[in-house]
């Protein structure tokens, strides 16, 4: 068997990045340095100017080369017609990266950027390009109390672990086998 692939942490922006930083800080403090989280790659949108430095503050060992810059599907205010092309382009990118790196874990918390990565990983695992042990983990944002985000709704059917942070969501989706509720993480 090949060496284990990296962990892909897909960074959103603003509040999403802030939450993901907390998660990564916790991972670092839990000392899972040897196992699954040994090698982390952070997926960041090209236009995102703050997420990388935010993450470096809590994970000082993160190097420049650990951050993979990718095109964003859609910028705020972009027209729908051109969105179609940029979305396809972003999808191609995600396909290429997941094919190349064969991540063993995809960890994400929205917004949209993470969706194509998860779908591509799901597909490539089905086709055998990724090992069956590859996991897709989605953490719904702290600010979603009663309803799932769009990314959440898109990823609920395929995530191996889907975390919600409030009791109303936990009750609403308790029949889902992949749903986990630990209480609020912040």
């Amino acid at each position, binding site marked *: 068997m090949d060496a284990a692939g990296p962990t892909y942490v897909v960074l959103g922006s603003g509040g999403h990045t802030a939450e993901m930083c907390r998660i990564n800080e916790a991972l670092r403090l839990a000392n*899972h340095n040897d196992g*699954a989280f040994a090698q982390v790659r952070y997926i960041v949108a090209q236009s995102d100017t703050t997420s990388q430095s935010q993450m470096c503050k809590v994970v000082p060992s993160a190097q420049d080369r650990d951050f993979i810059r990718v095109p964003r599907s859609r910028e705020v205010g972009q027209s729908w017609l051109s969105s179609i092309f940029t979305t396809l382009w972003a999808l191609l990118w995600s396909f290429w990266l997941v094919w190349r790196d064969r991540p063993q874990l995809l960890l994400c918390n929205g917004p949209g950027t993470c969706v194509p990565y998860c779908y591509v990983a799901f597909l490539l695992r089905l086709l055998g390009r990724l090992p069956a042990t590859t996991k897709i983990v989605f953490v719904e944002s702290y600010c979603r109390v009663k309803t799932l985000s769009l990314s959440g709704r898109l990823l609920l059917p395929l995530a191996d672990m889907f975390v919600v942070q409030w009791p109303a969501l936990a009750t609403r989706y308790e029949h889902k086998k992949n749903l986990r509720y630990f209480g609020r*993480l912040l």
Partner: protein
Amino acid sequence: MNLAVVYVTVGTTKFDALTTIMVSDTVLEVLKKRQCQKLVLQQGNSLPVELARIQEIEKKYGIKLEQYSFRPNLSDIREADLIIGHAGAGTCLDILENGKAGLIVVNDELMDNHQMELAQQLADEQYLYYCRVNQVPSKLSSLDFNALKPYERGTENMRKFVSSLAELMC
């Protein structure tokens, strides 16, 4: 509880209804009664208060008004006895994690439903208060900010999540 320093923050939003009511005579009257000496207004993309009005407020109510659009606000948060803000998750967490009394004011014009849900949930758990713009004067005069519960961080839950993630990867 005295509200010597009150910090109003709207993040990156435009929330003229809140900034306007905060410098209305009704609210300033209430703030004066609660021993307010300083009002810091982070108005983001909302309209700034006119200079003449700032001087008038200081003269009439003895409240020093400081306003700005954007700047790192950690010291504003720490200095405040009460934080009044929009329903953004960032603002809610700033209030809770710094152990501050907070009043979240819902921006009816935005109708960003899920953010309202968060403020409502946190209010239900008595970590902060929550109201509409027109309720601000009455809430400010009646609310007992000492009755709010201190917020415990979700560190233990995070630890459980991390170990269950490690288990998943075995």
